[in-house]
């Protein structure tokens, strides 16, 4: 990340310390064909009490990023870069130190609540285990009190405290999971597609709970989803991810109103509402993360692609409105590319994408 940008970032950021600061994060997996660059140089900040939405297609690396922040990557994945949590570099910690932060400082809410709870353990036992791990001396009564209070806030009646997971509906299980993640009051929580497995009505309830986290718990949240509607409802800022990179990040309202990056624009256009008459879609399929397209990864599918997009990766810049994006077309629109040769700015000849690559 360039120094100039770093400065700009600090200028626009208020003086209160960030909960999370990520710089040039990379997470690569090893496979037979070569390393998969699931996360390929991602930088962002999260302020206390803020909800940052992370949106993108399947396979863009957002789940990997979420897990990487907590150190929950599978064997064979390597992470590097800088990850500061409340000032401390998480990547420099030993495994044990990272472990002790999980749960109490860093929380995680997973996608499928059904399988995330041990079917042989009662809910009470789940809470006891979590609380006791981080507060060794706490007595049973205090544990139960805190757990029941958390469940109450999640809308789970105390009579169900000693029930087993399979006795709850999907929505209730997710609320229990959120409760388990929050009971230790961590300052930062990652929610990885928390409502994808739930129906729409339940989804609304869960999103409301997540949205109110800020008031009730002062927790910062990284909300990973592919659903733009949720972002619009619940998030303060949004980061759009494509092929392992954040292509645009800014205040949610601004990004939705004036998207700088063509991908963001296409995403917004492809959402369906009651007024939709024709289906818009982005042709092609997500790129191969082992050998991503050269230059800007989005260029094969971008309606605004120019010659330069295929040869040079665009520079991360803060644009009008405060949004940060990396896109040559956006730069050109702001008049920043005037000194480049015409050849570079000519529209890119793209291959006809008639059939999705996966077929």
């Amino acid at each position, binding site marked *: 990340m360039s120094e100039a940008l770093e400065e700009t970032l600090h200028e626009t950021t208020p003086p209160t310390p960030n909960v999370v600061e990520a710089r040039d994060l990379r997470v690569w997996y090893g496979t037979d064909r070569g390393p998969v660059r699931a996360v390929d140089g991602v930088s962002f900040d999260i302020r206390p009490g803020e909800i940052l939405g992370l949106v993108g297609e399947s396979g863009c690396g957002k789940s990997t990023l979420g897990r990487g922040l*907590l150190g*929950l990557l599978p064997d064979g994945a390597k992470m590097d870069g800088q990850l500061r949590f409340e000032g401390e570099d998480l990547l420099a910690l030993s495994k044990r130190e990272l*472990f*002790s*932060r*999980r*749960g*109490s400082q860093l*929380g*995680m809410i*997973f996608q*499928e609540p059904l*399988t*995330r*709870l*041990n*079917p*042989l353990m*009662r809910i009470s036992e789940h809470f006891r*285990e*979590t609380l006791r*791990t*981080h507060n060794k001396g706490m007595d049973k009564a205090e544990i139960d009190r805190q757990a029941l209070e958390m469940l109450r806030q999640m809308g789970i009646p105390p009579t169900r405290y*000693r*029930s*087993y997971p*399979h*006795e709850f509906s999907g929505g209730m299980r997710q609320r229990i*999971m959120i409760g*388990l*993640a929050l009971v230790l009051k961590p300052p930062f929580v990652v929610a990885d597609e928390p409502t994808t497995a739930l129906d729409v009505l339940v989804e609304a309830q869960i999103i409301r709970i997540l949205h109110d986290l800020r008031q009730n718990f002062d927790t910062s949240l990284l909300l990973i989803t592919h659903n733009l509607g949720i972002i619009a409802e619940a998030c303060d800022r949004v980061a759009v991810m494509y092929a392992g990179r954040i292509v645009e990040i800014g205040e949610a309202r601004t990004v939705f109103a004036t998207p700088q990056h063509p991908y963001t624009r296409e995403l917004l256009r492809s959402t369906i509402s009651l007024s939709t008459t024709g289906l818009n879609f982005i042709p092609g399929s997500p790129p191969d993360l082992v050998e991503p397209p050269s230059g800007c990864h989005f260029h094969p599918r971008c309606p605004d692609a120019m010659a330069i997009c295929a040869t040079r990766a665009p520079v991360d810049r803060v644009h009008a409105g405060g949004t940060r994006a990396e896109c040559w077309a956006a730069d050109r629109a702001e008049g920043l590319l005037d000194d480049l040769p015409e050849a570079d700015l000519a529209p890119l000849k793209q291959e006809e994408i008639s059939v999705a690559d996966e077929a």
Partner: protein
Amino acid sequence: MASASGSLPRYIVQRVLMIIPMVWVLITMVFILLRVAPGDPVSAAVGDKLSDEALDARRATLGLDRPILTQYFDYLGSVARFDFGKTISDNQPITDVIKNNGGATLSLTVGAILIALVVGIPLGLLAGRRRDTGTDAVIRVFGIVSYAAPVFWVGLMLRHLVAPTGWPTYEIASPITKFEIEPVTHILIVDTLLAGNTTAFLDVLQHHVMPCVVLGLLLAGVLIRLVRVNVLQTLQDDYVEAARARGIPERYVVRRHAFRNALVPVITVIGLQIALTLGGAVLTEATFSWPGLGGKLIEYLIARDYAGVQGIITFFAIFVVLISLLVDIINALVDPRVRY
């Protein structure tokens, strides 16, 4: 338990009702098979010992001169009353045979299962935890070889090894013990305790060691494999990752989540192996001249005593089915997901 306990009796009744047809199928199969053989049972068993009239008389007493369907229904009826008929060779009611010899087989089987649990479960858990390491390889090979090695061979080899030390390798007890102890439950080891005779108890215990170890190793081999696979699968389960995400230390995660969940099906597994255990018990009894039902079965096989063979096999069939019923019930009590 959490679920409505009032329906447990109903569940049991449901299972019993499902068991009955299965038992009926097994009994019918045994009956058909043993009648299908050419020649008649009586001459096969004692043909060379009795005169023709005596043979006919025997056949009449055993009801073998009546039409086969009548015989079949008679047989079903008597089995329902727990009367398994009489042997041909020595005219003994099979129920008596079961009573006198069942205890020895029972103590052998129980001892073997205990040894299998003590050896098999820890090794299986260890192998699953340390997948693909040297420890895992050694344990797996041990498991495979334990199962591959025939009980009669292991018994024979152990016998050769142990012979110089004078450790007992035959029978269930010394003649003195057998003479002294009153058969109350007909399970010798229990009877020695009831009689308060410590020397006799130790004597019987000593005799139990070799056969139980041999049969136990066989079962342990199977158990190791099953437990290991279970552990591998539970370690990949989602709730394990979720627990890690909450900061639960790895050793607790492994012990309280993976191992515990991996062992829940162990009871079912043991129950399912009861068939294997019975087969192994028959062979073990042959190897160690153990006075159990297996030994008796072989006696009747050699004597071509159809009634004896039929009676004992029918009893085994019912026993296996009852055990599987018991296992189902225990499973329902232990696993909260089984709704009843």
